[in-house]
Structures are given as C-alpha cells and as structure tokens.
C-alpha cells in the first residue's frame, strides 16, 4: 500500500526507522492498520476544509497601518541577540573677527557606532570617529629615473584629520551594581567626557576645559585601553549611586613630527611632545593608570559627581612622574531650567625633572640619528604641560516651545519640539605653563613658564525638532591676558601675536541616529 500524503510517508519512514531491526511482523501489520485509520481521518479533514473554503467569504486584506515597525507578537522573547548601527555627526559654520580665521565651515566629526546585544547580560559597543575627515590617500611607488630605481611614498589627507577608535568594549553584567567592562573605554573624568556626543549638547562648540584649552590630560573624547567595573547602587530614599572604575594604560607623553621643506633646501622638523592617550599596543611605561567616578543622584534630574585620575605620564625613557586630575560635576533640573557644570583640576608633577630628562634623551637621539646639521633642523617642543591647570564650565538652559508654533513647520508632526536658550560661562587657569625649554648638549639651560588664563562667554539658541537632531546658533567671546595671543593657550584659535580677544558667531547642526 502506498501512502497518499508525503507527511504520512515521512511519518512512516520515521516510524519504521525507529523500530528495532528485530521487530515482529505482527507489529508491522498493526502499524499499517493504524496508519490506514489515520490516513482516513486526514482525508476527512481535508474534505471538510475544502467545503468550508467554498462556502466562506474571501478573507479581508491585511489592514493598512501607519506604524513604522511590523506587528510584533506578544510572545516576543524578553532577551534578544542583535546588532544595531547608530552614530552621530556635526557640522559648523563659524564667522570670527580673528585675522587669520575669518569664516569657515568645519566638519566637526562623524562617529559611527555599533551596539550588539550578544546575549542576556552581555553587550558590546564600538564607536569609530572620523574627525575633520574627508580623505586619506596613500601612494607608494618605485620610479625608475636614469636607469636607477628609487622609492617614493606620499600620504594625502584632509587638514587636522583624525580617524580613531573612540570606544570598543564588551560588558558582562554580573549584577546591576557590578558590570565588568573591558576594551577601549571612556575615561570617567568629569561629566562631559562620558557624555560627549555632539547631538546631546545645545551649543556648537565643546567646552574649554574638555577640548579647547584642555585641562583634562587628553582632550575629549578621551578613551584608553583598560578594564574595570561600573554599576548602579540604589540607596533607598536617598536616591542612587553610580560608579565607574577602570585600570588602563593611561595618558603619556608622545611625539608628533611636523616637517617643513624650506625654499632654501633646508628641511625643518618640529617634534612636539605632549600628553596623548596611551598606546593600544605595548605600554610605553611600566605603570598603569586608574580612574574612578562616583555620582549621586538624589532624585531624577539631579546628579552630583566626583571623579579622579592618577597615572604616570612619562614614557620609560624619561624619569617617572605622575599626573593626577580631580573633577567635580553636576546637573540639576528645575522645571524647564537646567543647570549643569564641571570643574577639573590637573597637576603634572616634576616638570623640571622631566624637562631635564627630556633634554638628555633628545641629545642622545640626535646623536644616534646622525642628522646632517647643515640641511636639517630639528626643533623639540614640550607642549601642553603646566604645573597646574584648572577650570570650569557652567551652563544654564531654558527649554520652551510656544503652543502657537505646534502646527507650524517647526512643530508639525514632531511629538516634542523644543527651543533651548543656553548661557555658558567658562574659565581656565594655566599655572606654570611650559613656554620654552632650552638645552645645550644634554644640559637643560632654561625652562620658561608663565601663568595664563582664558575666559569665554557664550550665548546660544537651539532648536530641537526631535531629541536626536539639533540646530544650534551661538555668539561667543573668548579672551586671555591682555596683549598675549590666544593661539598660545587654545588649540582652536589661530590668533596672531597680540590678538587676545576673539568674537565669533557660530551656526551648527548635530544629528544622531
């Protein structure tokens, strides 16, 4: 007897294959009888379905829906494994009264992020930053000239370009209060560095202490390779504590080389040594750094945090010296008003000893390099070091949106559009800022330091149609010691000698997705 349905055939095969090889013939006959009975029942059911199809009206088409997501079953698993792509970006127009700046568009950055739910309690995050980045082109060749083979290499890129891994970590949540995180992590010093996404802020320029006149050992966004723990600790009616604590390679003095070919044929090389984020390969020093931030949130919308960083900032070829930073930050929300701020103090120990060691090391290296003195000039600059740097920023914001604009082009189809007025006041003091280091042979002959300040006042107005997108305008005035250039103390104002004040109008757009 041949089965009339593939399902019955499949069932038969499975059943037969499941039988032991010594099965009795009578058992097979009994099985065939049962299958025959089942087949008859299936045939009856098929006939009933056919009759119902002929009598029932055609099924209605699926209902139209304006929802952006497909329908979800109520039995969706509570934990899902997936990978989501996101990111943020920002662009700015700036008109300044500085002689060498005038007006310019700046592609601030584009950050591509990925967020993976690997499994319940296991998560991975990655962020790749393209800062002022439009192109990077490398050309190599082996040209033949006059019968001789030469080699050439050229690198082309956009000005002030940076391509960096901003974050890349995996997190294992042991409990709510103990989540282990390892990889490239943001250093938890102050509140800006850990909340640095451009589209989260309502002004089109980052703060001085975090970026423009960095009091942080490394400019934000500052990340390091390391590992540690973070977590939330509820404390009942007193609110909640949040902490982050990591051990990492840590910031270290590192070099960047700038070469200039003069018309006279002389090649000038300037080696700038300044604190940079630590290496992701072999640590340049045999000591690790640590950072810790503890924040207390007594109620939703209110938080105060304290954080610290400590580590060696000199590579192995220089004497061991420490940098330490402390920060206090906070935010409070009072209806439509927000007040947010951050204070950071950084101290570099033993700058004089480091400068002496630097002079000795540079002398030895110049000798090893056998640099032809008549055609090449090498200058060294110990930049960004000060015995003490400290400063703060304070934002006051007011959020509103008039009802009469809700049906206008600014409000229509947006759930909660906002206008935000922001006033920011910033001050930075640089005490014992290293201006010049002179040495003869391996001996330090002079170390020139100075005390400087930079102040900035900003008034901004922003429009947020949705939380992820903001259009920002701002007027800012930046000034420093009378008669001294802003260029020597900021890293973003190309002021000439004596230009101690800058006024700028900014318009920016920042977006996230």
């Amino acid at each position: 007897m041949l089965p009339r349905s593939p399902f019955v055939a499949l069932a038969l095969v499975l059943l037969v294959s499941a039988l032991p090889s010594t099965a009795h013939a009578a058992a097979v006959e009994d099985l065939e009888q049962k299958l025959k009975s089942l087949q008859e029942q299936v045939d009856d059911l098929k006939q009933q379905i056919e009759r119902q199809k002929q009598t029932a009206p055609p099924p209605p088409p699926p209902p139209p829906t304006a929802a952006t997501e497909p329908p979800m079953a109520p039995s969706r698993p509570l934990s899902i494994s997936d990978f989501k792509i996101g990111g943020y970006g920002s662009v700015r127009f700036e008109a300044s009264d500085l002689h060498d700046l005038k007006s310019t568009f700046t592609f601030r950055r584009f950050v591509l992020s990925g967020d993976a739910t690997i499994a319940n309690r296991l998560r991975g995050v990655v962020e790749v930053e393209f800062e002022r980045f439009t192109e990077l082109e490398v050309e190599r060749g082996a040209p033949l000239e006059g019968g001789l083979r030469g080699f050439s290499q050229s690198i082309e890129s956009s000005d002030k370009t940076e391509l960096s891994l901003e974050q890349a970590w995996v997190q294992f949540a042991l409990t709510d209060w103990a989540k282990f995180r390892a990889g490239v992590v943001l250093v938890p010093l102050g509140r800006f560095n850990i909340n640095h996404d451009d589209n989260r802020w309502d002004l089109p320029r980052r703060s001085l202490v975090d970026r423009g006149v960095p009091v942080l050992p490394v400019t934000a966004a500052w990340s390091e390779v390391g590992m540690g723990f973070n977590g939330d600790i509820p404390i009942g009616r007193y609110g909640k504590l949040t902490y982050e604590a990591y051990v990492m390679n840590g910031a270290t003095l590192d070099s960047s080389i700038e070469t200039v070919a003069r018309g006279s044929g002389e090649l000038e090389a300037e080696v700038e040594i300044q604190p940079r984020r630590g290496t992701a390969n072999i640590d340049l020093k045999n000591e690790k750094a640590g950072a810790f931030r503890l924040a207390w949130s007594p109620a939703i919308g209110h938080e105060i945090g304290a954080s610290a960083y400590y580590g060696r900032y000199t590579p192995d070829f220089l004497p061991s010296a420490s940098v330490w930073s402390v920060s206090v930050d906070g935010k409070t929300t009072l209806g439509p008003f927000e007040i947010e701020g951050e204070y950071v103090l950084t101290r570099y120990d033993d700058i004089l000893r480091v400068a002496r060691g630097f002079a000795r090391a540079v002398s030895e290296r110049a000798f090893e390099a056998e640099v032809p003195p008549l055609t090449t000039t090498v200058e060294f600059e110990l930049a960004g070091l000060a015995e003490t740097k400290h400063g703060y920023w304070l934002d006051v914001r007011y959020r509103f949106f008039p009802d009469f604009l809700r049906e206008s082009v600014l409000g229509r189809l947006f759930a909660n559009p906002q206008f935000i007025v922001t006033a920011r006041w910033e001050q930075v003091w640089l005490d014992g800022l290293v201006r010049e280091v002179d040495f003869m042979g391996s001996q330090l002959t002079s170390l020139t330091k100075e005390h400087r300040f930079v102040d900035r006042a900003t008034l901004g107005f922003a429009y947020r149609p949705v939380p992820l997108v903001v259009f920002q305008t701002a007027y800012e005035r930046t000034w420093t010691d009378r008669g001294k250039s802003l260029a020597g103390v900021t890293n973003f104002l190309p002021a000439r000698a004596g230009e101690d004040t800058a006024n700028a109008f900014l318009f920016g757009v920042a977006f996230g997705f």
Partner: protein
Amino acid sequence: MITRRRLLRGATGAWLVLVPGAATGQEGVFLRPEDAPRQLFPDGGDVQERTVEATPALRERVRALLGGPPSLWELAYRIFTVRRAAAPLGFVIVVEEIGKHRPITYAVAVTPTGTVHDLAVLAYREAYGGEVKEPRFLRQYRGKGLSAPLLPYRDIVNISGATLSVEATGRAARKAIAVLRATGDLS
C-alpha cells in the same frame, strides 16, 4: 600574603554576594508579564488574564484616541483584570514601544477611572537609558491620564541621555489607556 585558603574564602564570599544579586538584577529582563499584576497591585486578590487581538478596528480606535499611530503595533494585548473582594482594582496591560532602536516592554497598571496606577519595565534592550526602569522615575506617571502629554520637559522630568526612552515610556502609558478604552474595559 594571600594563601590558598584565603583565596578560596574570598572567592566563596564573592560568589555568595554576587549570585543572589544576579538573580534579581539581570540586565535587560526585569519581570515576567504574569508577575506584573501582583507587583503593580500588591493589594490585589483575584487576577484574570485574557488576550485581546489587535484587530484593524481596535487599532483604528486606539489611533483615534492617541491622535496618531504608536511606534509599533502589537499583534495582541495581554490584559490582566485585578480585583479585590469582587471589586475591580484596575487593569494591567502589556505594551511595547520603540526606544532608540529596540522595543521596550512595559506592564502598565491602569485604574478603572483611566489613569495610570503604576508602571513596570519588563524588558529593556537598549545599550543606554535603562534608568527608565527605576521606580523613582516611573512614579511620575501615576495619576496621569490620556489627556496628559507625558513628555520630557513638559510634565515629566527627563533622564539625561535617555530622552528617547523617556518619550517611549510616555507613549506606552498613553497607549495602554487607549487600548483599554478601545476594548471597552474603561468607559
């Protein structure tokens, strides 16, 4: 000096401390739907569950009540009716709304008069913004009805860095009330 005995003792202590915490504090999943009525209505007695299919007609009524579509439609709604001594205490309904990339699953407790009694986040799947599950945040929604905007900086205190999840929570609360009205559970 760390001896082997000390190491074992420390490891055992850490295990005893961490494991109970892990059992209650798993990241992402916080509560099962069937446990939500007891948590949201601790005084409740009898709990009856039913599932209501999200038919086109029901969706149309919900959309009209909300003034627009939600960020996603469920296929069906699990509705728990909670009573105490035969008197209705309220309803608990399981709804979902998109945070930034992923759905957040909520259990919303609604009083018979159509206001939010309480909320619980059953599952949170985003990388950031999990603070919306905290009771001190969810307390803000109590007593608010369908006419309230339930939006940050208007009638809800925002959580910095979690604005999208805060907005999703408001949408979930409003959707829950709208569904209960559309099903006839609320007048």
